[in-house]
């Protein structure tokens, strides 16, 4: 195919062809079975660890090393989860709802704040100390204040979730927007692009890998935020379930609440990771390369 394209300079054409063949590294696209195997190969260790933890838990309770009212057996915990599935499901959904809403608001506000801060150093200098201050205040300490202000409804929980998830979003987005190759921005100027075009086509997509690493932290923190909000005053949600169970010394229910809460965090984290893979295939595939070369 390289022949006859540049008949006037055969030497150049031949040289180009020679380089061209070696130019691309052919990457095999694995099939579904291969990928499943690969996933299994990658995840069996953490799974094994998890199983080991359950085994230890089971052994401890079966051998009666600890009184059952302090540490319930895995069996009784699962029993509670099955018997009170409707109850747990309802409160788990409330917590998930608060988490998602808080996370969404944190992402929207955080990304917007980051963009404004990157484009205006005055705003950055003004806003940054305030952000830092908001970050260092222990959320659990100000949560009661939100209950006073906003009542016992869903609002104070969302506010706490937003406050706690906001910071990693802003920091990662600012880092992402600032890490753009300055030569790329200069190139954009020679293309006659305005600031908006440069933002849409270059700066924003380039910042997404950074943003996603912040989102993964933020989504797990949002769960914590929602539960903290519930601890302070609520009649719904997993925080409420745990407080109730605690008050009744109902440790199986307490453990069930903890497990469901952790599951929510893990599932949301995985969802963000899947979104990253779908939206940034170029980034994920590059990282994949880096991982495989260390084997």
């Amino acid at each position, binding site marked *: 195919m390289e022949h006859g394209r540049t008949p*006037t300079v055969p030497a150049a054409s031949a040289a*180009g062809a*020679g380089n*061209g063949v070696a*130019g*691309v590294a052919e990457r095999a696209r694995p099939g579904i079975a291969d990928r499943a195997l690969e996933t299994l190969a990658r995840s069996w260790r953490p799974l094994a660890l998890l199983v080991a933890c359950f085994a230890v838990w089971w052994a401890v309770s079966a051998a009666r090393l600890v009184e059952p009212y302090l540490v319930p057996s895995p069996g009784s915990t699962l029993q509670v989860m099955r018997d009170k599935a409707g109850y747990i499901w309802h409160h788990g959904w409330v917590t998930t709802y608060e988490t998602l809403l808080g996370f969404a608001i944190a992402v929207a506000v955080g990304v917007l704040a980051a963009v404004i801060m990157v484009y205006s150093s005055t705003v950055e200098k003004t806003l940054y100390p305030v952000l830092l201050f908001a970050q260092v205040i222990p959320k659990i300490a100000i949560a009661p204040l939100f209950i006073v202000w906003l009542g016992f409804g869903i609002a104070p929980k969302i506010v706490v979730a937003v406050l706690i998830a906001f910071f990693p979003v802003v920091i990662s987005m600012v880092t992402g927007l600032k890490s753009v190759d300055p030569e790329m921005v200069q190139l954009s100027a020679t293309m006659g692009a305005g600031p908006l075009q440069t933002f849409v086509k270059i700066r924003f997509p380039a910042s997404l890998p950074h943003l996603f690493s912040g989102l993964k932290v933020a989504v797990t923190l949002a769960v914590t935020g929602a539960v903290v909000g519930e601890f302070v005053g609520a009649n719904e949600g997993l925080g409420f379930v745990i407080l109730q169970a605690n008050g009744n010394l109902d440790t199986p229910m307490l453990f069930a609440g903890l497990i469901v809460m952790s599951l929510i965090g893990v599932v949301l984290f995985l969802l963000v990771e899947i979104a990253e893979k779908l939206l940034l295939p170029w980034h994920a595939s*590059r990282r994949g390369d880096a991982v495989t070369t260390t084997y």
Partner: protein
Amino acid sequence: MNEEVEQTVALAEGGGDAAAVDVDDVAVRFRTRKKDVLALRQVSLSVATGEFVAIVGPSGCGKSTLLKLVAGLLKPSSGAVRLHGDAVTGPRRDIGYVFQRAALLEWRSARRNILLQAEMRHMPSAAARKRADELIDMTGLRGFEDAYPHELSGGMQQRVALCRALLHRPPVLLMDEPFGALDALTREQMNIELNRIWRETGTTVLLVTHSIAEAVYLANRVVVMSARPGTVTEIIDVALPAERDYAETMGLEEFSSATTRIRRLLGAASGAE
């Protein structure tokens, strides 16, 4: 291609006898908090339309600064820069720019990286695609146009950057050590192709390089610069035909006399440092 050359020639004739690039007694001073650095002083250079001029000089002598002045990415502290007789006051759209690093967008395929130029300029998309195809053929990228940057070798990435810079048929092409990061063999191949592309497009080229052989093989004239504050030490005419066979050129008397002369000048410049 011929059509293009004619266009460029017509442009030059239409614009009177104004040089494609005219740098007139330019000085650049960078102010930082701690010190003032004079990067360039008394630099004057005139490049005719269709000419290939290479700029060599020791590291930090302001070669890249000079290119950025021509592109309008930097403003001179004194003096003037003109493109086709037109004073440069801000970033110019009528140029193509190639950096040492290819500076490609990782999330775009080679073709879409090339077409970024068209999108930013709001060029009609059918014409832009046709032009991109021409360039893909011209630079030997055919077969790799749908590959992503991380799947391409350094040489291929730089070809993509070159296509992107040529997409809008810029009358002036500015290249800042475009092959500096490539291995020696790939670099030679790229030199041979750049010579061909220059002849086919008739573009005026300003090339900054560290390689004396590259400068002499490619250019009509080689500008030798002194160490900082950079200024033009000498401009050397390369008496070689436009079409140059690589191996043959290396053996020519004109080639070796020019490289020797430049090497002496650079030696003197760094010795005086």
